[in-house]
């Protein structure tokens, strides 16, 4: 694609998300969500392959529907409370409609069906935008609304997301679908904490984005689309090691940084007396850990008979941009546990 067009679309994408974050009025928020959706459509479908176009179309339909639902909820709230202000939601019906719209946008269970399908049809660079950047705006909105009305819906959806994210990833052999279900599970953890301490959720969400971006960039560099192709990462040993560490971090194994995403929510739940929901989260987390370890096993603990011309390479390839990004993100996954004391300032 033309670089100017690319730059314009990325700028619109950033502008749309910024508009959502910095607005207090429902109309610019809706505008920002639509702007980011429309900006990303050409970026997703530029390869013009039928699978990419299909994923783009499905993504557009889901996002457009949820944005329309959001506007519907906002207009209903305007009718009832006579205010466009984000924090002036008084009616349970309008809160329910807006929450449902945000749950669809985020891909939380039970509205998660589109997410793995869309991600599996797109190249890895596009999945980074869908799985990381496009979650920022709706997550920000959801966290802002979390303290307004009683949020049993969010807790139920979070528990469902964690369980679906774990169970759904078990049957997958496509790395993109596995990471999609992993994303659903992680968002379940983050949204449940939002109900208790929203500030902690922001930090957990940031940490999740950084971890996920590093893994997707490594997958993009090595074209690691399926479990069977993970053995190719053995050709570059440093990639295999970094990939394994990042995945185990995402799985929440101590002493890696991803353990924060598991231990902080559990502490928050127990301090608020909600011990009954902890077993569900633990079960979902342990199930999802299985498919992370399966990927790690295929990556670093198997060695297929290689062709004699496929010698081990210690150079990581020609991608100039992704290497420094990976190099900065990976230390966060390794040393992120040192940031644990920061979270106790909010608890």
């Amino acid at each position, binding site marked *: 694609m033309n670089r100017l067009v690319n730059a314009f679309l990325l700028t619109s994408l950033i502008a749309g998300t910024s508009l959502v974050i910095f607005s207090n009025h429902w109309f610019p928020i809706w505008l920002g969500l639509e702007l980011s959706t429309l900006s990303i459509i050409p970026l997703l479908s530029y390869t013009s392959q*039928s699978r990419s176009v299909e994923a783009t179309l499905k993504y557009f339909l889901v996002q457009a529907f949820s944005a329309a639902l959001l506007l519907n909820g906002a207009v209903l709230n305007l009718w009832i409370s006579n205010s466009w202000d984000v924090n002036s939601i008084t009616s349970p019906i309008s809160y329910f409609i807006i929450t449902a719209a945000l749950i669809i946008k985020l891909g939380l269970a039970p509205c998660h069906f589109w997410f793995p399908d869309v991600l599996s049809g797109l190249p890895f660079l596009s999945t980074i935008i869908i799985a990381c950047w496009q979650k920022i705006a709706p997550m920000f909105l959801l966290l802002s609304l979390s303290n307004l009305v009683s949020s049993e819906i969010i807790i139920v959806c979070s528990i469902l997301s964690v369980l679906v994210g774990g169970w759904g990833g*078990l049957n*997958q*052999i496509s790395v993109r679908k596995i990471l999609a279900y992993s994303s659903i599970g992680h968002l379940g953890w983050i949204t449940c904490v939002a109900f208790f301490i929203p500030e902690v959720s922001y930090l957990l969400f940031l940490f999740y984005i950084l971890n996920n971006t590093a893994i997707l960039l490594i997958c993009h560099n090595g074209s690691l689309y*399926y479990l069977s192709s993970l053995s190719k990462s053995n050709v570059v040993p440093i990639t295999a090691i970094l990939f394994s560490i990042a995945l185990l971090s995402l799985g929440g194994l101590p002493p890696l940084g991803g353990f924060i995403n598991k231990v902080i929510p559990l502490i928050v739940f127990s301090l608020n007396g909600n011990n009954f929901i902890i077993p569900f989260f633990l079960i979902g987390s342990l199930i999802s850990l299985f498919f992370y370890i399966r990927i790690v096993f295929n990556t670093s603990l198997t060695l297929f008979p290689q062709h004699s011309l496929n010698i081990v390479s210690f150079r990581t390839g020609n991608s100039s941009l992704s290497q420094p990004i990976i190099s900065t993100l990976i230390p966060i996954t390794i040393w992120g546990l040192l940031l644990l004391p920061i979270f106790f300032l909010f608890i």
Partner: protein
Amino acid sequence: MMACVKYQGLCRHFILHSGVLRTIPVAHAGTLKTLHRSFSSEEKESFYGSLTRNFKLMTQEFVTKLKSPNIDTMFDRSRVLWEYKGPESLKEFKVVTDATIGGQSTAKLGISRNNKLLFTGNLNTDVPKDGETVRSGFCTLKTLQQFGSFNRKVEIDLTPFTTLHLRLRGDGRAYMINMYCNSYFTLTHDDVWSYFLFTRGGPHWQNVSIPFSKFFLSSQGRVQDKQSPVDLERVTSIGLTMADAVNGEFSLELGSIHVTYDATESEEFVYERYQT
């Protein structure tokens, strides 16, 4: 019985044709039998009967998915897609010829003397006189499309594999191997990924291995400018086509079709993909 037939100066030996050939016409051109429809054309299933059957199927599919059959799939090394096990194996195929567009080719499915699937027929390139058709002459052997609940196409996931293998014995003529995938858009319903299959006419069996990266995209018989690799997640059918534009009889014996994972296959797609 050996028969030597000359095609434009080439001599092909037909050791497969014999007087004791058993032919069991299983499928005829243009018909499509699905595995889940067991009633005859006279019986019509009631609406509630159909609804109950489909919901039962859907429940079975959901329970199967819940059991996660791929949970122990670390890396699938090989899988047999089809193997000749008896006359009932022929029911998984259908034969389509250009008779559907008014052509003169004929083809049929049978069991050979060596107790394997036999795809025989006569290719005729005479163009039907309808004023529209420009070319004619094809005979296709294709696996039947499987249907799940509510008539949804069942897709075969071949993503763990890299290579398609066929065990066959040909007549020396050139065939095409086709892979059909489920498509989301009506525009891509006719997309077919194909590759050439050159057979040896000798008495020995032939093991053909074709990487999936070598299949090229064509639609309605035209090779597309913008190429893409096979969508291995959504394969619905595999077929063989005889369309080498040479009039005459053909014969192909098929033993098995299976897929394997070859770790030395590192190419994703061998053809140029032009950037626009």
